């Protein structure tokens, strides 16, 4: 692995009213790798995601995507440049069906969304691909149900489907398996390993077995700072990581 | 009068276009002008019809005379639709009243298009007899010139020399201010300063604070405010004790109903111009007593003017023997009239301004108020010839 860095951050810092959530983080995500971010709750992982995707402007530091400075760009532009994300706390359009979600995502890069003088039937061109994606995450039968009526685990799956629909260069997944049953976890792992082909994936995950199965590189954050970075096996064995994050029993698990 | 609006096409021996005469009162029955005219104007018109019938009995051109009324809520668009509807659907031959300048002007347009009569009573704009005049529209009672000129000239002649004028910053106020200042200066007074105030406004203290500090110190505060703004201003005028500081008050536009709501005590000594006053003389008082019996309240000038206009219209129909609009208009033009409302009245042919005597009024001190609604004494009668502006020349019939 260890290809060139597709997404990198230098000295990235974010303050909230005097509280430093992300502190001087340097991060290099190699192209075509799966990069996991782990760390105790409140370490700043989600905030880092928010910074990388433009949802929060950094207090200091820079972000580069594929050699281009994207610091301070609004989220929609970051998304346009090929960075898609899922949200830790499920974020969907409650009244739209799963299929409509995916169609909306598929349409996004095309500029079709501006055509207020054309018929919405034009969006049918995305149907086939949308159903494919839904099928991929196991939502084929639920394609018509409004998102608000889905059980939690299904919503997570739908999040993943719409992130994939953007066909992103970089896919940022915030705890993609949280709240999923075992089968869904397995499916998600399998799915991520499938879609990582030709893509870069950054994920926040507390489930260490998922991290172990997917990640090429693991960065451990603590209190906003990078604690350790390295391959999974090495990080898991690190004393500092065990005390700060894994705890004695789970490290063995 | 039917939908065609063309020449007389009477049936039987009647020369009426449709066997009946219908008067339409279109005014504000729920808003700011509701008390000033409102439903009681309809009553006044009904009184006129009754009086007309009593006067002519069987000789009346028709017995079939009625009133229709509608509420325009002071909204010109509603006034527009209502006016058209009154003429077209309700068979109205003449519309009366119509307060609020925008509505008043709009209805003039409708009258012109429908070729039906229109007597504006409660609109203040001089445009009705100026650029917006037309053959079918008559302007009764008062207008902004009468108000501004009356008070400005007369109060200055009565001793007010240095004026501070505040006016609301919209067309009516600006127009009033111009006329008022001209009148004051024409009568030898001096306008020390003038200020436009926001409109609407509930805080005039800035101006009231300023008044006594001007140089030379004004002896009179001339206000062109109306309605709630006037009430605000007067209340605050008293709060800042300007009268005690030697600054009197003269009001451009005030109605009896305003005095009632502010109480005479708050306004004691204030001068303004009135078009008619119910307790001016015996004739007025008798009519006012009848009105009181009908409605339970004393009439404003608007009520009397509505009565008068209805009466004069009916008289004109009677004289012409037809309700054909053009014939009636011809009969009215140039006519000289004296009735309970019009003193030395004349309907000018050039612009259809109905001129008549106006009055400089002063609010009595509380102690002198002996009777409800008897709030003012008339200082001076302004002769008809002076009370209104000469035809402006803008009017092309």
């Amino acid at each position, binding site marked *: 692995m260890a290809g060139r860095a597709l997404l990198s951050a230098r000295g990235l810092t974010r303050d909230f009213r005097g509280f430093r959530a992300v502190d001087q983080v340097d991060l290099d995500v190699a192209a075509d790798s799966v990069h996991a971010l782990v760390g105790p709750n409140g370490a700043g992982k989600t905030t880092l995601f928010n910074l990388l995707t433009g949802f929060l402007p950094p207090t200091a530091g820079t972000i580069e995507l594929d050699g281009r400075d994207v610091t301070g760009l609004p989220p929609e532009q970051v998304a346009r440049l090929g960075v898609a994300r899922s949200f830790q706390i499920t974020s969907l359009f409650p009244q739209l069906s799963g299929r409509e979600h995916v169609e909306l995502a598929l349409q*996004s890069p095309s500029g079709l969304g*501006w055509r*207020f003088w054309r018929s919405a039937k034009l969006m049918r061109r995305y149907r086939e691909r949308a159903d494919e994606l839904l099928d991929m995450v196991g939502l084929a039968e639920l394609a018509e149900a409004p998102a608000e009526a889905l059980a939690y685990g299904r919503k997570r799956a739908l999040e993943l489907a719409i992130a994939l629909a953007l066909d992103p260069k970089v896919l940022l997944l915030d705890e993609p398996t949280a709240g999923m049953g075992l089968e869904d976890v397995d499916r998600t792992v399998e799915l991520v390993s499938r879609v990582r082909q030709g893509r870069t994936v950054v994920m926040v995950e507390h489930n260490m077995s998922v991290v172990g199965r997917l990640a090429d590189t693991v960065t451990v954050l603590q209190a906003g700072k990078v604690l350790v970075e390295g391959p999974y096996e090495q990080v898991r064995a690190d004393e500092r990581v065990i005390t700060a994050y894994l705890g004695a029993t789970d490290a063995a698990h | 009068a039917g939908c065609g609006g063309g020449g007389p096409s009477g049936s039987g021996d009647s020369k009426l276009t449709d066997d009946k005469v219908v008067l339409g009162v279109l005014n504000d029955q729920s808003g700011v002008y509701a008390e000033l005219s409102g439903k009681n104007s309809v009553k006044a018109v009904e009184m006129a019809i009754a009086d007309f019938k009593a006067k002519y009995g069987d000789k009346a051109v028709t017995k079939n005379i009625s009133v229709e009324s509608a*509420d325009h*809520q002071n909204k010109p*668009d509603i006034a527009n639709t209502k006016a058209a509807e009154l003429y077209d659907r309700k068979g109205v031959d003449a519309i009366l009243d119509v307060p609020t300048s*925008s509505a008043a002007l709009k209805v003039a347009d409708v009258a012109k298009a429908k070729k039906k009569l229109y007597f504006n009573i409660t609109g203040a704009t001089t445009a009705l007899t100026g650029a917006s005049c037309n053959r079918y529209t008559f302007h009764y009672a008062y207008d902004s010139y009468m108000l501004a000129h009356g008070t400005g000239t007369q109060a200055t002649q009565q001793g007010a020399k240095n004026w501070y004028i505040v006016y609301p910053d919209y067309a009516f106020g600006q127009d009033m201010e111009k006329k008022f200042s001209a009148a004051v200066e024409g009568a030898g007074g001096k306008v020390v300063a003038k200020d436009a105030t926001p409109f609407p406004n509930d805080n005039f203290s800035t101006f009231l604070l300023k008044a006594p500090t001007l140089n030379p110190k004004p002896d009179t505060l001339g206000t062109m405010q109306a309605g709630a703004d006037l009430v605000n201003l007067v209340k605050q005028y008293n709060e800042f004790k300007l009268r005690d500081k030697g600054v009197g008050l003269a009001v451009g536009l005030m109605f009896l109903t305003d005095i009632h709501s502010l109480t005479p005590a708050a306004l004691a000594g204030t001068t303004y111009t009135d078009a008619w006053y119910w307790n001016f003389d015996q004739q007025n008082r008798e009519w006012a007593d009848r009105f009181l019996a009908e409605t339970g309240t004393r009439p404003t000038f608007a009520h009397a003017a509505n009565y008068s206009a209805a009466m004069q219209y009916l008289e004109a129909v009677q004289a012409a023997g037809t309700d054909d609009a053009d014939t009636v208009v011809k009969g009215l033009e140039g006519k000289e009239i004296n009735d309970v409302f019009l003193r030395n009245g004349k309907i000018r042919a050039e612009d259809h301004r109905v001129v008549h005597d106006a009055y400089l009024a002063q609010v009595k001190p509380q102690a002198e108020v002996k009777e409800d609604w008897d709030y003012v004494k008339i200082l001076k009668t302004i002769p008809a010839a002076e009370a209104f502006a000469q035809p402006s020349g803008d009017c092309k019939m």
Partner: protein
Amino acid sequence: MTTTVDSEAGAKPGRAGSGLVAVARAPWWVRYALLAVGLVVALWLPNGLYPAVAVDILCWALFAVSVDLLLGFTGLMSFGHAAFWGTSAYVAGIAAIEAGLPFPLAVLTGALAAAVIAVPIGYLAVKRTGIYFAMVTLAFAQMIYYVANKWGTVTGGENGLQAVPRELGGVDLSDEYYFYYAALPITLLGLWAAWRIVNSPFGRVLVGIRDNPARARALGYPVHRYKLTAFVLSAFLAGLGGGLYVMGHQFVSLDALHWTTSGKAVIVVVLGGMGTLWGGVIGAGLLVRLEDWLSFSGFEQIGLVTGAIFVLAVVLFRKGIWGSAAALASRWSAGRGK
């Protein structure tokens, strides 16, 4: 950028599912039948109603639909749409008086002017959502009201703009009855445009933005710009209504810009059914007719009646007329489907 409070807005008022979608999913013949009935009623209207009232209904229908476009499909409740309605009315009126434009062109000019002033207002207003948006638009509209009031030389101040000519290539339109038929095509065009916008890819994005703006941004949709575009389009439609209105009455006054006018437009939409588009048309018909009737009825408390209807509609009848009918119809068809 929105605040926490904004994003907590919770359930949005216009549930697209209640009206539009239900009809869109109705069998084709139902849709065409409804359309046909609507057209027949539109063609017949000035024969059954006083033509001037019928013209008013057309104007208000456009106005209401423009408000619903924002409210029901973008989740933005404009309480200041009178600004666009009124501005267009003034501009169209002035265009007809000063430049002697034939009435359709004057109306178009007015609508364009409304769209133009919607750009700066919208630019600022779409920074807020929910209830703030309502308050901000209300305040800006009031500001325009003050300006128009002050700027009497152009707007005629409180006298209004009088005697606006209404002409079209020598055809005499002074009779309201004929004018109605001249105005109808413009109205239908405007309504069709609104329908098209809602049922376009753009419309779908708006619904997404309404339901979850943060998600929409993460999908790459510039939310503010979409909202602004919707705002301007809506202002244009409101402007069409306002332009027709000035032509219909041949005059316009400051009332057209007052916040009560904005409020009335919202009442019409709620009455007809938010997020249903056509509900606004029905609401307009009802309210205009009701007001017309009330002003001859001798009943003075018009605000009492409209206010009470409104309160009842909000408390008991939130789907409005169209929404309720659609819900009934879909329940009925679902029942039959079993």
